[in-house]
């Protein structure tokens, strides 16, 4: 067994009402997704300040994924519409600065889509693993 193999660290912000329940369903259905994915529950995807995403990258995340209710299904009516605009702008800016665009993603996962949740996480973890470590946004003070 290789001990020093660096596994990608992925931070997933999941909205309480849809995606977190989706993750729950994935678990109940015994669908596996990588253990590298750390889920952070937020009340709504629009709770995610763009600084959270930057903070995650700074502290050593290799990829950040946001999951929320499908557009139109937000439990606060319009939260995810704002998320969509905000994150589109943020991701575009990160890409503009030369950060690999594959490291960021927004996916809409409903409470009934446990399978989609697992598939999304598997796919994202693979993509991020292929990119390797996030060197461009990390902060050495946060290195363990």
């Amino acid at each position, binding site marked *: 067994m290789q001990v020093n193999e660096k596994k990608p660290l992925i931070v997933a912000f999941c909205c309480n009402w849809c995606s977190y329940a989706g993750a729950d369903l994935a678990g109940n259905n015994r669908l596996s997704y990588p253990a590298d994915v750390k889920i952070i529950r937020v009340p709504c995807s629009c709770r995610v300040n763009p600084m959270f995403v930057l903070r995650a990258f*700074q502290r050593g995340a290799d990829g950040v994924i946001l999951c929320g209710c499908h557009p139109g299904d937000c439990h606060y009516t319009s939260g995810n519409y704002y998320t969509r605009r905000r994150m589109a702008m943020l991701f575009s800016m990160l890409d503009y600065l030369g950060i690999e665009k594959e490291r960021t993603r927004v996916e809409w996962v409903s409470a009934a889509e446990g399978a989609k949740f697992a598939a999304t996480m598997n796919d994202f973890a693979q993509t991020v693993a292929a990119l390797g470590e996030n060197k461009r946004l990390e902060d050495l003070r946060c290195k363990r």
Partner: protein
Amino acid sequence: MQKITRDVLVEKAASLLENGTVDRVLGWKKGEFDYDLTPAVFTSADDLKDLVWNDFCGANFSKYLIANTKKSASKVLVFLKPCDTYSFNQLLTEHRFDREKVYAIGIPCEGMADISKIKAVTGDGISSIECGEKINVTTIYSDDTVSFDLSDVMAERCVNCKSKKHVAYDELIGEEGDVIESGRFDEVERIENMTADERYAFWQNELSRCIRCNACRDVCPACTCEKCVFDNPNHSLENKAPATSFEEKMFHIIRAFHVAGRCTDCGECSRVCPQNIPLHLLNRKFIKDMNTHYGEYQAGAEVGSRAPLVNYTTEDVEPGDVFEGRE
């Protein structure tokens, strides 16, 4: 050379001070050197002898109105160039000052000179500058005067001027201009067309010069929060951080994002940057993206307009699709 003269402004200001319409005048005053004009408050006709109007009056006074309207018992007189009027409107939209306490005079602008372009030719030791038909520069290195045409040393933001139109004023000196089709997004496009590695190298080169003096934040008319996130010592996200790459990227991403949708593209951030970092390219990237995906929007063009990031439609582009058509 600017179309109107200093005397016109002084005369106007003096008469308004005298008849009591205003009790404070915001204008430009000579700083340590002839070219670093500083914003100043004039409270009497006598003070106005120091008022300057020439090719270096870049400072945008809109933000100064927030503090000065509070200090004024009557009104504050402010001189606004066309690009300043957009910031003026944007601050009104955000209810940052009382419109009733401002007497705004729109003044035409032919573009402002960039001292770094002059210094690139003459060297740093400039002893005096006179602005007339041409900009005449004397240096400590010789007795000769070097002359520049304004068009040759114009600041980048003025070369790509977006508008000569005043969108807000009580009184206008000179003629009403028009909104201009400018090539202000050309440079953004050039960077977008690079590969990710080239873009990263470009920004590493630019942003690693940052000394975190916070001048870009302090001057920005959109940065008017009384408590700024960057002043929180426990925050650490935007602090100068040791990195394998370069240090100040978080600060600049956050700064640009905080003004996204509210930035009027006045270019003050790049003007005041002591390291000549092209910060406006970050702001323009956001403006360009919003124009592309959410429809044309110019912050400050009208009072009360709704910025793209506080608005939405059900048909918006998905975050994963903003990269479409790009490498």
